[in-house]
C-alpha cells in the first residue's frame, strides 16, 4: 500500500536560514508527488508538484526515485513561510495520500 512519511512534526529555523522538509514515500508504481501548504486558519493550497519542476515562493523539490524522496527546500526562510506543509502522493485511485505534516516555524 502507498505511504507518505514526514519524519519531522515541527521544524523551527531562524529567518534567513536554509530549510529542508523531508518527505519519503512508498509506492510500487510511478508516483506523482505534491507539496501542499496550509497557512494559519486557511485552506490547503498546492505549493508545487514534481512534474512541473518549478520553484514557487522560493521553494523547490526534486523527486529522487532511488531514495523514494521528495524533500522540500528553500535556501533562505522567511517569516511568512511559517505554516503546515504536507507532502502528498497521487496514485491511480484518484485520491491523495498525505503525510502527517510538518509545521515550519520561522523565527525572526
Amino acid at each position, binding site marked *: 500500500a502507498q505511504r507518505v512519511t514526514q519524519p519531522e512534526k515541527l521544524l523551527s529555523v531562524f529567518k534567513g536560514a536554509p530549510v529542508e522538509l523531508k518527505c519519503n514515500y512508498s509506492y510500487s508504481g510511478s508516483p506523482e508527488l*505534491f507539496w501542499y501548504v496550509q497557512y494559519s486558519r*486557511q*485552506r*490547503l493550497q498546492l505549493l508545487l508538484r514534481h512534474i512541473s519542476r518549478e520553484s514557487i515562493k522560493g521553494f523547490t523539490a526534486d523527486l529522487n526515485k532511488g531514495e523514494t524522496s521528495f524533500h522540500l527546500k528553500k535556501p533562505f526562510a522567511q517569516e511568512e513561510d511559517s505554516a503546515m506543509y504536507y507532502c502528498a502522493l497521487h496514485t491511480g485511485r*484518484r*485520491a491523495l495520500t*498525505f503525510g*502527517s505534516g510538518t509545521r515550519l516555524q520561522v523565527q525572526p
Partner: protein
Amino acid sequence: DTAVSQTPKYLVTQMGNDKSIKCEQNLGHDTMYWYKQDSKKFLKIMFSYNNKELIINETVPNRFSPKSPDKAHLNLHINSLELGDSAVYFCASSHPGQGSYEQYFGPGTRLTVT
C-alpha cells in the same frame, strides 16, 4: 468567486445527532473528495466520487455517507455522531480527465461533538 465552498464553517452538536456538511465547487471538476483532519493535523481521505464511481476508504464507519445531488455538489452526511468524529472536514475537487491531479480544497468545517 470562491472555487470550493463548504457550509457550515463551524458545527457544534451533541452525541447521537445526525448532521450534514455541504460542499460546492464551481470549477467544472468531475471528481470531489472528503478528507478528515484530526487533532494532530493528520489528513486522511474518506471518499472520492465522480458521476461514475464512489471510492470509499474502508476505514470510514458506515455512519458517514456522501450524497451528490449533481456534479458540483458532494455533501457529507453523518449519523449518530460520536465524540471521536470531532475534527476538521475538508472537501476538495479535481479534474483528472484534464491530466491534472491537483486538488482544490474548501476552507474546512470544524465539527465539535459534545
